[in-house]
């Protein structure tokens, strides 16, 4: 069964550094998402991406964050000037065409900011 893959599984970075989290969505999907889950908290929406542009973003997704689909298969989340509070599990998801289609999630990248 097709799946969403994320790399790396764990990223440790010094505060203030930039990180890029990578995702390969399911190949025929058109909608792409990033969510995060801080330890002990709910899964939170960050951003959605469709037709090569951001379609929705949350208040969390400020100028520190950016997303890109650099080629036909990868979808990346860049976090600049990382802060301690950016430590979380980051999940990528993708969805096919259609109103009521489920989003499928990758296994996440655990980001630890030191």
């Amino acid at each position, binding site marked *: 069964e097709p799946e*969403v893959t*994320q790399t790396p599984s764990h990223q440790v970075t010094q505060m203030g550094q930039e990180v890029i989290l990578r995702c390969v969505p399911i190949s025929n999907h058109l*909608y792409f*998402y990033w*969510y995060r889950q801080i330890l002990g908290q*709910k*899964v*939170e*929406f960050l*951003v*959605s*991406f*469709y*037709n090569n542009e951001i*379609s*929705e973003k*949350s208040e969390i997704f400020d100028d520190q964050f950016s997303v890109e689909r650099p080629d036909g298969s990868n979808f990346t989340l860049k976090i600049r000037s990382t802060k301690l509070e950016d430590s979380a599990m980051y*999940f990528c*998801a993708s*969805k096919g065409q259609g*109103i*009521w289609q*489920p*989003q*499928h*999630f*990758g*296994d*996440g990248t655990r980001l630890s900011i030191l």
Partner: protein
Amino acid sequence: DQQVKQNSPSLSVQEGRISILNCDYTNSMFDYFLWYKKYPAEGPTFLISISSIKDKNEDGRFTVFLNKSAKHLSLHIVPSQPGDSAVYFCAASAFFDYNAGNMLTFGGGTRLMVKP
């Protein structure tokens, strides 16, 4: 953000019995509801969904019920198996248009433990 709420943080059930997981929502714009299962160190795995035009959807041992007037949905697992032990999240989205992202709003999760 309490738009989607799962009031039971944990549930323990005997193998073979029914597991009922509940979820409440407040946003009347939500029109699509999903249940995800999550094991440690893995991402949420899609289990079953229901659109607002239905009140029940069934897939094997899993049935989701939607009560729009009460803004309540539930997931029934019958019979429960030890392999069902995981954290279950309900999530909801609202459709605006095809260009919108249809972001998911998650509940806090319920940890289900099925005892052999």
